[in-house]
């Protein structure tokens, strides 16, 4: 697990943590059932308040990404494959939205974009 927080970012720290863990679960970097550090351990490592890490974990748990087992610790949730896929699709869609809006700003046409995507997807250099 990798978490890097920025104190100068306008985004609250608990959201930064949540986002990074979430994306690592979606990409599979954090596997199902993998143990996460305790909220106290993580707070100590990141030099932030226990309340902040606790809040980040609570949000993640609410969204179904992680499970907390009393007395054992916190783990990446065993997810419904369908749901995980949906979440991953949603994440791709989000990135594509960003991409499209960037392309529109630059005046890149749909055809050009499709061509770029085709090249990238088939892996040709």
């Amino acid at each position, binding site marked *: 697990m990798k978490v890097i927080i920025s104190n100068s970012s*306008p985004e*609250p720290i608990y959201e930064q943590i949540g986002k990074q863990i979430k994306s690592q679960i979606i990409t599979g970097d954090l596997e199902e059932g993998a143990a996460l550090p305790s909220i*106290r351990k993580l707070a*100590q490592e990141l030099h932030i308040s*226990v*309340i902040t890490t606790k809040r980040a974990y609570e949000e993640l748990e609410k969204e179904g990404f992680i499970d907390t087992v009393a007395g054992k610790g916190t783990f990446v949730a065993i997810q419904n494959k369908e749901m995980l896929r949906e979440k991953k699709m949603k994440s791709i869609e989000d990135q594509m939205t960003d991409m499209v809006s960037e392309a529109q700003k630059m005046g890149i046409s749909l055809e050009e974009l499709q061509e770029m995507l085709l090249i990238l997807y088939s892996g040709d250099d």
Partner: protein
Amino acid sequence: MTNTLEISNLSKSYKGFHLNNVSFTLPTGYIMGLIGPNGAGKTTIIKTIMNLVMKQEGSVKVFGMDHQEQEVAIKKRIGFVYDTPAFYAHLNLKQLKNVVAPFYEKWDDAVFNDLVDRFGLPENKSLKKFSRGMTMKASIAIALSHDADFIIMDEPTSGLDPVVRREMLDFLRGIMQDENKSILFSSHVTTDIEQAADYITYVNDGKVVFSKTKDEVNEAYALVKGGNDLLDDDTKKSLIAVRSGDYGFEGLTADLKASKMIFGDKAVYDKASLEDIMFFHNLQLKNTH
């Protein structure tokens, strides 16, 4: 959630100083930073909890017990560090340890020796030859070797250089890996509190200005900056205090959302540091006097 410390309506008057209706709560498992300018009442609050200074009104509960009725039972579980450690200066650290250790059933020499090693303290040097930093470290080693559940420290980082200061705060975080422990420490240095505290209690002029989690403070408070045309009597009211110059104003808000509604896009919103918060609250205090 249980509370390690509950203070309600605490009052105490000295000549020229008045601690006024102080109330705050520290839940078990967290670090609270007590911040405020010198002379704001931090030490008096801490000394009152410890019964070193006698309260005049209000109640103090530690571990759910009255701090005067159950004094001995409570103090067995407290590790206390004074702002100016008072030891028998003619003793060395080892001798001091031998004097203090018998007072605690849970005293652990191994923990003590480990801390002494870690802090690099000489055991056979007379305490009066210790520097300020060494004295503070010795005081902390003495206070933390009986597995205390509640650690109270008055200005533990004052007089320490930045490196040792950072070590000290890291050390406190280490203690907090055990969720049954709680820490209350005072400091007039805002960065100490920003680095280590879960809860922040800000005291000024003998009163509690606020007692909140650090996240709440970070989210609620902000600096609002803009042109002087944005300021009128109404908009000023939404700010705690304002400092304005020829080219614009800077003010502190305790409610970022509300301020955004009032000032809109024309103003700039910046994170407020604890120092900003203290500065503007102090300004407000001056304005009302």
